[in-house]
C-alpha cells in the first residue's frame, strides 16, 4: 500500500471518529471529561475522603501501628487539650492580623495604580507589584530570616536608635506572612478599583463632596468586596502554611503541628488537617455575605 493510501485511510478513520462524535453531545462530553474526572474524582476527592476517614482512626501507643477502627479520640484531643486550642487560635489570630496589615498596605498602592497614576506609571507599577510574585517563595522567607537575624540589617538599622529588632518569633511570622501575601491583596483591590467608573467619582465631586467624602462614601463601599476577595488569599494562605513559621519562629501553628505529627501519628495529622478546611469554609461563607464573589 502506498503511503498516500495509508494517509487517506487514516484520515478517513479519523473522520469516521469525528463523524461519530458529530452531533452527539453527551458522547463528546463524556470523551472530554472522562480522563480529567477520573483524576480529580478518584485520586483527589478519593484522597480527601480517605483523609476524612483516617481522621477517625487512632494509633496504638505501644506498637505505633494504625488501628483502623472508628474513634473520636483525635477530635476529643483537639478540643480538650489546651495546647491545640491555643495553636488554632494563634494561627487564626495571625491570619486576621496579616489580612488587616496587607489591606492597609495594599489599598493606597492599588488606589494609586488604578485612579491616580498615568498610563505609563500604571503599567510600571503593575509589573513592579507582579514581579516579586514570580520569585521563589522560599527565597522571600530566607530574605526575612536573614534580615531579622541577630546581626542582620534590622538590628543594624535600629541600633543607633537604641532599639532591638523583633528577632525570631510571632512578630517575625506576622511580618513574613504580610510580606509574602501582599501582592495577592493588591491585585484584587486594583481590579476592583479599576471597575469603578471615573464618572461616578466625577459626579460625587461635582455634587460638592470633598475628596475624603468621595473616598468614604463612593470609592470605599464599591471597593470593599474586592478587599474581602483579597482577604481570602491572605487569610487562607496564612492558615495552611508551615514553612514560614518554621523558618522565622519556634512557635507552633496549625501547619507546623500537622507536619510534626504526620510521621508518627497520621490519623491525628488527618484530624488536624480538617481544622483549616473548616475555618476556610467558614471564612468563605463570611466573604460571600460581604459580597466578595459578586464581581471579582
Amino acid at each position: 500500500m502506498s503511503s498516500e493510501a495509508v494517509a487517506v485511510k487514516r484520515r478517513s478513520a479519523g473522520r469516521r471518529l469525528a463523524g461519530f462524535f458529530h452531533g452527539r453531545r453527551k458522547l463528546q462530553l463524556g470523551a472530554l471529561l472522562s480522563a480529567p474526572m477520573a483524576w480529580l474524582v478518584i485520586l483527589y476527592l478519593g484522597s480527601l475522603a480517605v483523609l476524612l476517614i483516617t481522621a477517625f482512626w487512632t494509633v496504638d501507643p505501644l506498637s505505633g501501628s494504625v488501628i483502623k477502627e472508628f474513634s473520636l479520640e483525635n477530635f476529643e484531643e483537639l478540643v480538650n487539650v489546651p495546647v491545640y486550642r491555643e495553636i488554632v487560635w494563634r494561627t487564626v489570630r495571625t491570619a486576621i492580623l496579616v489580612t488587616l496589615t496587607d489591606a492597609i498596605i495594599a489599598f493606597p498602592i492599588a488606589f494609586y495604580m488604578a485612579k491616580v497614576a498615568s498610563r505609563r506609571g500604571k503599567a510600571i507599577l503593575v509589573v513592579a507589584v507582579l514581579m516579586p510574585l514570580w520569585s521563589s517563595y522560599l527565597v522571600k522567607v530566607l530574605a526575612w530570616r536573614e534580615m531579622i537575624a541577630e546581626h542582620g540589617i534590622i538590628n543594624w538599622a535600629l541600633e543607633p536608635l537604641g532599639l532591638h529588632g523583633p528577632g525570631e518569633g510571632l512578630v517575625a511570622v506576622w511580618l513574613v506572612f504580610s510580606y509574602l501575601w501582599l501582592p495577592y491583596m493588591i491585585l484584587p483591590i486594583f481590579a476592583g478599583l479599576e471597575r469603578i467608573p471615573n464618572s461616578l467619582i466625577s459626579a460625587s465631586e461635582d455634587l460638592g463632596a470633598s475628596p475624603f467624602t468621595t473616598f468614604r462614601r463612593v470609592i470605599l463601599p464599591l471597593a470593599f468586596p474586592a478587599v474581602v476577595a483579597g482577604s481570602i488569599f491572605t487569610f487562607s494562605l496564612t492558615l495552611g502554611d508551615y514553612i514560614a513559621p518554621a523558618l522565622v519562629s519556634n512557635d507552633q501553628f496549625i501547619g507546623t503541628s500537622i507536619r510534626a505529627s504526620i510521621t508518627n501519628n497520621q490519623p491525628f495529622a488527618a484530624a488536624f488537617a480538617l481544622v483549616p478546611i473548616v475555618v476556610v469554609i467558614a471564612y468563605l461563607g463570611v466573604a460571600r455575605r460581604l459580597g466578595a464573589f459578586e464581581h471579582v
Partner: protein
Amino acid sequence: MRLSKRARVLLRVAVGLGLAFIYVPLLVIAIQAFNSSKILKWPPPGFTFSWFEKAFESESAREALITSVEAGLVATAIAILLGTLIALALGRNRFFGREAINFLVVIPIALPGIVTGVALSNTFTQVLGVSLSLMTVIIGHATFCIVVVYNNVVARLRRTSVSFEEASSDLGADTWQTFRFVTFPSMRTALAAGALLAFALSFDEIIVTTFTIGAGEETLPIWIFRNLFRPNQLPIVDAVAVILILLSIIPVYIAHRLSSDEGGVGGRGGAGTTTAPPAAIAEAEATAAH
C-alpha cells in the same frame, strides 16, 4: 480623581513605602550573596563572587534543579492535557453538574496546600501502598496545576465567539478539523500562558512536595530548605536565591510577550490573565467562578 496636593503627596509616600517593603528584602538577600564572610553580618565586611562559583559547582544543587525541571515539565504536560479537556467540555456546553465540575477543579488550589499534601501522602502510603517518589510529587503538582491551565483556556473560550466554530462546521469541517484550525489557534496563547503559570507553580512548590517526595529525592525548594539550616551552606543558598530572583524575570518577560501578542482581543483583560502570577490569578479566577 481630583486630589489635594497634600493628599497626593501622602499617597505617593504610602506607595513608596509599600514598594520599599516589597523590594528591600530582595535587595538585601542579593547583597548578602556577595558577602565575603561566611557568617551572616550586616553590612557585609567585604564582597566576593565565590559563592556563585560554589553554587554552580554544587552537585546537589544542580541535581535538585534538574529534578525540579523534570517534575515541572511532566506536571505541566498532564495539567495542559487535563485542563484543556475540562475547558473544552465546560467552555462550550451547558449541562447538569457543570458548576460542580467547575468547583472540583478549583478545590486543590483553594484548600491550604498542607491539606492536599497530607491527603495525597496518606492515600499513597496507607491506601495504595505506593512508596513516595518523584512520580508521587508529579501527581500532586499536576493536581493543583490543572486549574491554572483550565482557567486560562476557559477564559479565552468565553471571549471567542462560538460562531467561528459554527461557521467552520457549516463549511463542512468535521469536529477534529474545527478544533485543529479554528478552536486551537484561538486558544494557543492562553494555553501557553497557562502552561507557564503551571510550570512556575510547580517549580516553586514546597508544601505538597515535602509530603509526597521520596526519601532520596530533592527538588530545588527542598534543597534550599534543607541547606538553610547548615551554616556552611548558607552563603551558597543566598547565591542560588539571587539566581532564582534573576530567573524570575524570564516568565515575566514571556508573560508580557504573550499578553501583547493577544493584541486588542482581550483589551486590558489580556494583562489580567497572562502577566499575573500563578497562584494569584488561579485563585482570583477560582473565586470569580463561583
